[in-house]
Structures are given as C-alpha cells and as structure tokens.
C-alpha cells in the first residue's frame, strides 16, 4: 500500500493529517458522514453525494473489494451511477478485499476514477464535530499540503451540482408498453432497476426538461429523482413539476423529488444541521402505523409544519419528526424523503414502487 501523506482541511481551521490513497489530487466539498457500515460501491457512486466529502463512520472500508461493472438492461447492478460521485473519501482504515467477485480494490478504484482518499483519521472525532457544529466545508489534498485551502471551498448551497450529474440528452430503456419518465437530477440506478422490474419502459430526461417535453412521451407516470444540493435553486424543476401535476399524471418524488414536490405546492424545506445519511433509520407509515427501516441521504428536510397544500404526512421519522413521505389527496402525487430502492440499505420499503404502480393503474 502506498504511504504518501494526505491532509484534510476543514472550514473551522481544523487540519487533520492522514495517509493518502486513490488519486493524488485535491478534492473539495461539504464534509458529511454516513453511518452505513457497508455498501461503499453504491454510496460512492450515488450522485446525491456530488459536491461532498464523504466520511464513513465504520472504521474499515474496502473489505470486499470492488465488483466489476455489470449492466442488466442498461442498468448497473452494484453501482448507482457510472462513476464515483463523492469529491473525496475520508476513512479510518483502508482494507483489501478477497471476495469472490472482487474486481479491484478500493484504492485502485479511486485512483482510476481520479478521486482522492484519506485514511488514518479518527472518523468518530470528525463525525462528532459535524454533529455538534453542523456540516463543514472541507478540502482534501493527497500528496502535498496546501497553503490557502479556503480558495477551494465553494458555497454548497448556491451551487448547482445537478447540472454535473444529470444527462444532457434523454436516455431511453425499452421495456413494456407503458413508459415512465424519470426526471434525472442524479438518479440512482437502483431506482431505475425497481421501475424497470415493474415492466415500464423508461426515459431518463435532463433535470431541466420542460413539462411539455416530458408530456410528449405520454408517460404513464413521472418520477422526480434524488439528487445533490439545495432544492430551492432548482426553479426549472419546480416549474415542470407544477405543470406536470396539472395533468394528474401520477408523480413519484424521491428524496430531492420529495423536496421539489413540497416547494411546488407551497411547503417549506429547511437545511438540516447535519442531515440523515444512514441505512438504519425507521420511518412510520402514518396510515397503518407500521414501521420500516430505510435508507436516508438528505441534508434538507420537510417538517410537519411545512408540508405543502393538499398533502398529508405519509411517513414520519419517530426520532426527529422529519416528514419522510407525503401523499397528495386527489392529485396522484406521492413522495418519499427516504430511498425505497435502498442500495445500500434494507429491502423493507421496496413495496413503495408497487404502490406507485397501483397509483398509475388507478389513474388510467
């Protein structure tokens, strides 16, 4: 294993020294942490992490290596997008994998994708810092220390990361007779896989695709996907959402899509201190009082006082009262703040996709 030094600079002038891996370069972004103990190939390629430095709380990362990229019907199996999306990876210990389907190790993967990593960091200390102070801007440099790290820091909340992860042109997946349009703000392949499994043909369209172009597909349903960054700056998307909704076409908003739906109908979205990034969190279905353990990856949230007009809380977090899903009565709109496709995470909430299918079938 290589042994060059690496440095992590945080907005509050903390400087941490560790050992570098992956690419020898500088990565900058909002430092956030995930408490998911495995599933790093999925997490690292999750477009929602664009613009962020990912801190993993589990101390060992890399244990089962990295599998080969395998497409099934054009959709990836173990990755959430074609490339690593985090700006840098911060861990306690880098390990080698010896699993039967390991194709390369984590170090090589990061290097091949040009992403810097640092290990030998007390990630618990860092996590506590983020927990107590809120998310922090950070700069990771592998190889050499840098003098003025602040010049690398961008204002996360104002930056449009979606433009970097959304496709320029529509991408289509042929399948059944019915088609679902996915407004791709950085969609995870897990979501595509779930929709495809239900038999739908898919059209992944650029995030700022106008409503008329979306409608020109004559979609059976529209999914507003997950994605990185602040929902408030996505005026185009909010507009298309409002217009598509006019046509009573079933809409499913996932994560960022849930926040877009909230803003589109006059609700409010707040920036959280340090967000939910975990695969171990319960949500409660307010209709059935059933609980599910689900995957979360969001730094903004809707609270019960800020839900949009005409909506009802569908899912609620019992821990901090975050609205984790909405149902719009009579409007054919459903949203979840959590990720029913998981990846990484439990299969508890996979049924939500068939719920969407039911909504589509009832709308016809």
């Amino acid at each position: 294993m290589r042994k060059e030094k690496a440095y992590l600079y945080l907005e509050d002038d903390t400087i941490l020294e560790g050992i570098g891996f992956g690419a020898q370069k500088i990565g900058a972004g909002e430092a956030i942490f995930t408490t998911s103990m495995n599933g790093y190939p999925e997490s690292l390629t999750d477009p929602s992490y664009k613009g962020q430095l990912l801190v993993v709380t589990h101390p060992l990362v890399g244990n089962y290596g990295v599998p080969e990229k395998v497409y099934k019907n054009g959709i990836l199996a173990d990755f959430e997008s074609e490339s690593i999306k985090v700006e840098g990876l911060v861990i306690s210990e880098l390990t080698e994998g010896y699993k039967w389907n390991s194709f390369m190790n984590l170090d090589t993967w990061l290097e091949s994708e040009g992403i810097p990593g640092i290990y030998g960091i007390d990630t618990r200390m860092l996590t506590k810092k983020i927990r107590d102070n809120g998310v922090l801007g950070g700069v990771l440099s592998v190889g050499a220390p840098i003098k003025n790290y602040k010049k690398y820091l961008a204002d996360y909340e104002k930056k449009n990361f979606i433009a970097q992860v959304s496709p320029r042109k529509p991408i289509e997946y042929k399948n059944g007779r019915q088609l679902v349009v996915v407004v791709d703000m950085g969609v995870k392949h897990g979501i595509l896989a779930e929709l495809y499994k239900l038999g739908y043909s898919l059209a992944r369209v650029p995030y700022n695709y106008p409503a008329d172009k979306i409608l020109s597909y004559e979609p059976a349903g529209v999914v507003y996907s997950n994605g990185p960054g602040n929902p408030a700056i996505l005026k185009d998307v909010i507009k298309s959402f409002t217009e598509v909704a006019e046509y009573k076409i079933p809409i499913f908003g996932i994560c960022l899509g849930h926040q877009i739906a909230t803003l589109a109908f006059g609700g409010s979205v707040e920036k959280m201190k340090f967000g939910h990034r975990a695969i171990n969190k319960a949500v409660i279905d307010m209709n059935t009082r059933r609980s599910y353990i689900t995957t979360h990856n969001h730094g903004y949230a809707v609270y019960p006082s800020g839900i949009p007009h005409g909506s009802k809380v569908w899912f609620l977090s019992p821990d901090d009262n975050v609205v984790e899903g909405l149902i719009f009565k009579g409007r054919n709109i459903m949203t979840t703040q959590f990720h029913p496709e998981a990846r990484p995470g439990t299969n508890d909430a996979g049924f939500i996709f068939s719920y969407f299918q039911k909504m589509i079938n009832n709308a016809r």
Partner: protein
Amino acid sequence: MPDKKIKKVVVLGSGPIKIAEAAEFDYSGSQALKALREEGIESILINPNVATVQTSYDMADKVYLLPVSTPFIKKVIEKERPDGIMIGFGGQTALNAGIDLYRSGILNRYGIRVLGTSIEGVERALSREKFKETMEKCGIETPPSGAAKNREEALYYADLIGYPLMVRVSYNLGGRGSAVVWSKAELERELGIAFSSSKTEEILLERYLSGWKEIEYEVVMDRFGNSAVTACIENMDPMGVHTGESTVVTPAQTLDNYEYQKMRSTAIEVAKAIGLVGECNVQFALDPKSYRYYVIETNPRMSRSSALASKATGYPLAYVSAKLALGYRLYDIKNRVSGATTACFEPSLDYITVKIPRWDLAKFDNAKESIGTEMKSIGEVMGIGRNIEEALQKAVRMLDIGEPGIVGGKIYNSRMSRDDIIAALKGRKPYWFLYAAKAFKEGMSVDEVYNATLVDRFFLEKIRGIVERYENRWNEGIDVLKKLGFSDEQLHAKHSATPSIKQIDTLAGEYKAATSYLYTTYNGSDDDIEIGNSGNKLLIVGAGVFRIGVSVEFDWSSFNLHNAAKKYFDEVALINYNPETVSTDWDQVGKLYFEELTAETIEKIYRKERFSSIATFAAGQIGNNLSKTLEFAGLNLFGTSGGSVDVAEDRNKFSRLVEKLGLKQPAWVAATSMKEIKRFISENGFPVLVRPSYVIGGSSMRIIRNFKSLMQFIENYKLSKYPLVISKIISGTEAELDCASDGSNVLGVGAQHIEEAGVHSGDATVVTPFFGGKSAYEKMKAAAVSIASELSIKGVFNIQFIISRNEPYIIELNLRASRSMPFSSKSVGTNLIEYGVKGIFEKYGWNGFYEPKHNAYMVKTPQFAWGSLRGAYPYLGPEMRSTGESASMDMSMGAALIKSWLGASPNRIPEKAVLVYGKTNQEYLNYIPRILSKYNRIVTLEGAEVKGAEPLDKNSIIELLGRKEIDLLITDNDIRDIDYEIRRAAADLSIPMVLNGRLGKELAMRFHGAKLSYNELSSYY
C-alpha cells in the same frame, strides 16, 4: 401499549451455569425483570442458581430457588397465580420447561399467558421437522435434509442426502449430540448420543456445507409485525464449528450490501413465519464463492449470541424483547443509549468487536481436544477496537491463557514443526488463530492456512499482517504497533502514550450518548468523555472470563460491590470484558469500561481518569493476581492492603501467623528442591496434596499417593522458580466461613460439606448452617476474629477448615470475595459484600463474631458438564471441575438437599434401576441398596460390588445404560481402570451420576418421602 391485565408475571431462569448456558441468562433475565418493574408488574423469578445477580431483590419482587422443571414451577403457579409467564429469558432450560408446562395443560388450567412468542411458534422453530416444513411453506431455502425419529429413518435420509452429513438435534442445548459425520459407520456411532440428547428423540440429517461461512442475524419484532435487525454477526470459523465455539466478529466484515440485505430480509421472513414476538436469532450458511445461502436455524429466545449482540451493539435485546412481550410497539420503546431516539432502528457500529470462547479442556482427563458442532467452551471474551487487529489482540489477552496477543507467546515461540501446525489447525484445536500466526511466522502462505482452517482470507490476512509487523517490529514505529493492538508486554517496552476513550452509542456518533459505555483505542485522536475531573472515584475490577473456578458468583460480587460502593464515592466505575454478564450491562453499571484486565490497561485508565482507588477483591483469580502489581505501580488499593493479602497468600507468612495465633493447620511445605520434598514425605507420609502456589479453582492440584505419581507430577514443573506446595491430607470434613470485617469485628456465615475433605470445595455439596460439633464451630469463629484483628482485615474474607476429630485445621485464608459468598449471603438474607464495604468505612455495631440467625437450611449442589466433554472421565478430586451450582432452602437439610440436587441437570429421581458400586466410601455405598431396593432395581459392578445389589459385568451394565434401563449411577472416587466406559456411557446418555458415596447415601435417604416446601426465598429468613 402494554396489556393492562398483566399484573403478575413468572420469569423462568436457566438454572446452574453449564456449558452453553452461562451468565448471559443472568443478564437477560435481569433485563426482563427490570422491564417488568418499570411497568409496575410484580415479578416472580424461578431459578435455583443462587450465585446470580437476578436472584436478589434488587431485580425480582419474589425469588424461588427451585429447579426450573414442571413439578416445581407448578407449585409456584398454584401459590402465586400469575397472569403471565416469560420463558424466553432462561435459555433452552426455560424454553423446554415452558413447553412442558404448556403440554401438560397447566398454563391453560390456570389461565396463564405465555408472553412473547407463542408455544406454537417456539415449536415451529425448535422442532427440526416443523421448522423445515415452515420454511418450505414460506419458500425459504434450508439445506437438503431429513428429520428422523429413529435409527432406520436416519440411515434412510443419510443415504438420500449423501455424506458428509451434519447431524442436528431438536430442542437441545449448545449443539449437544450434534456431529459432522463422513461415513455410515461414523453416523451409526453418533446416533445413540444424538437421539438421547434430544428432548423429543428427533434428529435432523443435513448436508454438511463444508467451508461455507456462518452468519447470524438478531431480529426483534413486535406483535404488529414491526421489526428491526439489530446485529449481524460473522463467524470466522466456518460451518461445522458451533457458533458458541467460534471466533466471531461484529459487525459482519466481509458481506457486501446485496448479500447482507438479502439475508437480512430472509431473517425477517423467518421471524414472521414462526410468529415471533420479541427476539430471535437466525443463522445462515453462506457460500464463500457465490451469493447462495441457506437458513440453518432460529432460536426464538434470548441466547448467548443475543447477549453478545447486545454488548457488541449497545442495543439491549432482552430489555426490548421483554417490552415487546408485554405488548409494546417497537417504536414506542426508547433507545436507552441515546435517550433521544427510539428502539426501532438498526445499530451502526464505529468499532469492531471480536468474541473468542474460552475452553478449559485441559482440566478434564481424556477429554477430546478438538472443537466442532458441540459446545465445550466455558466462557467468552469480547475485545473492542477500531480495527480487527486491535480487537483481536485484546481479546486474546482477555482469554487469560498466558498468551500476550496473537504473536509473541508460548505457541508463537514454540518449536512446532510445520506438520504439527497444520495438524493443529486441521484438527481444530482451540484458539486456531495462535496456530495461524505461528504458521505465518514459519513462512506458510495464506492459502495453506486457508486450506487447513477454511477461515476467510480477509481475516487470515489480518493475522498475517500482525505477524509481519511483529517480525519487523524494530523498524516499525511504536505508534503503528500500538494501533494494531500490541501490548507493552508483547513489545517488551513501556509505551507512554495513553489510549483514547471512546463511547459505544449504537448510532456511530450521530446522536450524543446518554450512557457511559466505554472502551479504549490507540486508533483515536480524542476522547468522548471529559477527562480528569477529580473527586473520590473508585474503579472496580471485574471477574473477566469465566473458567472452571471463576463464574457468575464473582460477577455477583463485583456487581454488588459496585452497588454498595456508590454510597461512599463520587463516582464508581467498573472494568470488565465478559459479554455475558450483568456487570457489563451499561444500563446497570454507572460507568463501564469494556476493557482488558491487564495491569497496563487498568493503570492507563486509572491514571488518565484520575481514579482515587481501585478494588480488586471482588474479581476472583484475575483480581487476586493483579493486586500486587497494581499496588506496586502506585495505585491505591481499596480495602485490605496488599501486605495483608500477601500474608494470606504466602504459605510461610501465613504459617507463622497461624502459629502465632495458636491455631492449627495440616503439616505442609513449599518445596523448591527434591531434597525438601523427600524430607517432608519421610516425615508425613502419603497421601499428600500437591499444588503450585497462587492458584484458584484448584487447577493442577492433585492428591498423590506414591513416589511414582509424585515424580510424574513434578516432571514438567520448574521447581526452583515456583515452589511446589505439598500438604498432608487430613481426613475429615471441610467447613468454611464467609466473612466481612471492620478490622476487628466479624460478620460471618458458616457452612459444611457433605463429601469428605479431598473433594474440591467448588465440587462439593455444601450445607449452611454449619451442622458439625459446637466446640469446633466456636474455635472456627474465634479463629476468624483473631485473624481479622491480627491482619486488620477491612472487607470480605473467607477461611476454609478441615474438621478432624472435632478439631478445626485451617487450610486456606482468602482476603477477597469467595465463590460461596452469594450462597452464604442469600442463606441469611444479609449481603456480605455490602458489609465488607461498610467495614472499610465504619465500625460494625457489635463486638467479635456475629452470625445472622439461620431459620432454614440452604444446600448447594455443583453442576457438572460431563455430557458435553466427550471422553472426559467423570470423578471428584481436589481439582475443581464443576461449571456452576444449584441451591435451595428448606426447613430440613434433606429437603433442601433434594431440591438443590434436582436443580442441576440431568438429575432426576430414579424410577428404573439404580447402579451402585465403588471401592471407597463403601460403608456409605453399602447402605444405599437397603434404602432404595424398595423402589428400584439395584445393580452393581462385579469387582466393585456393594451389598444387597445384583452384580453384573461391565458389558451388561453398559447395555442396560444404553437401553436407558438405569437412570441413576452412584459411585465413588477415581477407579477409571475398571469403570471408565461405564461413567462415559452414563455421561454420553445424559444419565444422572452421583460421584461420591457419602452424597449418594444422603440423597438415597431423601429420594422418597422427603417433605419439601415451596416457599419464596425471603420467607426462610
């Protein structure tokens, strides 16, 4: 919300500590009792294990020290008329008892609800046949298998499935009776044991998935079907090694998201299929070369692994499970660690834990030294670190087997050849990782070690890495080595840096923790707690890993010390690493360090946290061994000074003290040369008792009857370095005083053994109060007072005597908590530990010796593990071999004796033939046929006959045993030359054995017609 109709609940305990049922059920039972108390529900505990924490009134409202079996439980039910019963907190013992109660219609008759998973659900899980059916119905894959009820069916399925096969047993404990068989001949050999280990005489023949990984999930589910999977445990050992015998890492390390979640979902389906309400574990076999997996089994109760999972994750499974059994929704229960979130979540760990079992096989003559499908380990440890190396090396030291870590110890520095190493690994000798490290040292490859062990390369690479760093240690920075868990001892260097103190919080730092559940690591750059607040702070050393001689009684002591000391200190913390225990329950202990009990770790924590005193006297052997080192290092010992302890431990100093006080003791010598030994023998003759100095539980203690055996004993002994203590054996009975003192006055409880002196006190049947001669007892009490004053003992102590011709001889003085203290304390309802602590701070309100009044007898019976230790020869001697104890109280000694004897397994009153024979204690043995022939056929062994019994040769007896026509064996002493096969057959077939003639006679007199009472413990005070 909970059911308001439930006002009174019976909780079943697990009985004596035995292999596969240890303190984890003290812990889970205590948690259940706590949950009941929070709800204002009256709790009634039935458990004869007097040494537990749960059998005290801090936990339960009422305690019945009675066997956990239908006739006794029925009596309690008739008396108490409870609304509900909890059968999931006392291991397999409680679960089986619950099923019996249900089948006998008692629960129905008295309208008692089984709280938690229903009996039907339990049966679906535990009957191999029903389980397979249930899984098939739900489309869950299990390995190809067939359930057999007899030999013919077994052979039929074996042919169908093909060899190798795994033989599994229904309703069994610790894999008892199970085996991997590679041929028909082997299978035929195993069938007898397998069928007799099953409560229902049902076994399962299953394809043996050699080399597959074993993974275990812990599921909680409420009665509405809401669930969470709170832990995933990965066994390093492959399938074929019982999970209780495996080295286990939590959280799982080599699973990717896909397989982790697939199996997790299946685990929930399994829980749903059996109708779980509460907690269960689900075990999987996972192909190491693909995503294929099978469900192996489920246990719908608290288990050893659920206790481990609770400690590893901070998620209190037993507590939550009890609340779920009472009807709560999962998300209406609080997460007690964060205090802010709910119990409906899945813990995220930002550390690694490694659990290793501890074996004591060397204590048992002829026991097979190889691990497999049956549990043989006696204890377990859990190391916590921020990487695998740190957690693993800590855990190895915690085993307290003299190994300083993975490398650098006896095995690592031995002269084993490559062939020997491979043979040890292939033969599955305990502690494979030590041999793996040795293999790497000798230049073997990971592949070679993998082929011998089938342990995942990920873990083997970690061990190889430790070896590499160690061999290159002079070039490595010490910081790098400390991060990999090396101890100062291992590196022969004193390292000045102190480790970081980290908190276990179930949420990987996402929320602030409200509890102080701590560990230390060299892989950290800050502390989770505020350091260095001064004040009067006490650190209590816990008992560490259980082994023969140190068990739950020392957990009781350290936990009670923790509670008693709170009154006198600003802060009381406890340090221990045994995941089974109540003392490592962060919910019960104010501040818990889950850490090594080595001088290095203790000293570093003590200094970093600025403790003002350290208590070692409640911790059994480990505490004993540490006290001198810690005092020498400048730590302030709480209680009696190390100097006084030294007088008690050093035979010479103790001898002078005894002489000075005008007391008597058997002749003895601490010999460092052959000359001294010979002189002693010529003066005192044989037999003699020999032992190395500084031991507990009588390890390596032997009765020697001639020069030849003496020479054999000394052969491997470094005489000049460690003196050999030889003492004259005085015939008589043994008696003990458990005491607390304030420096001059003594609170004491006396007890006496039924077996003659020569049987280790831990293996003897003990009766309190003392029932021997009054004048001897007066002398004993006077001795206690004069010793306490002379040594200014402040705290607890124990004196052992032999009473010979009504004259007490002192044989041992221990200035620490003794094994029998929970027994003596509970016999009179006076907590000796509490008085011990009081005596350190204040004077008692009496002069001289005070013994609380005994209104009834309490008797304790040892629990042996002969059945679990294949090949071991069952006999009683000066070396302790029992694993636990059962106790009961009654108005007569005989009634208390019978009840306590029946509390140990597999004891039961004989209905068929009784086998009585022996060559010693014959006056007692000869008496037995006279009493029992009215009720039983009495047979005896030719060559060791007793009078009035039908003599048979060895083969006929073994045949009778095999046909289960003998249901009790009474014999005496060690006569393995003539009866090894007989005792082994009885052990393998779970037939009760009484291994001492005097005890045999006492029992025979009370099997029939003893007037038993069934009262709550405190009613005897």
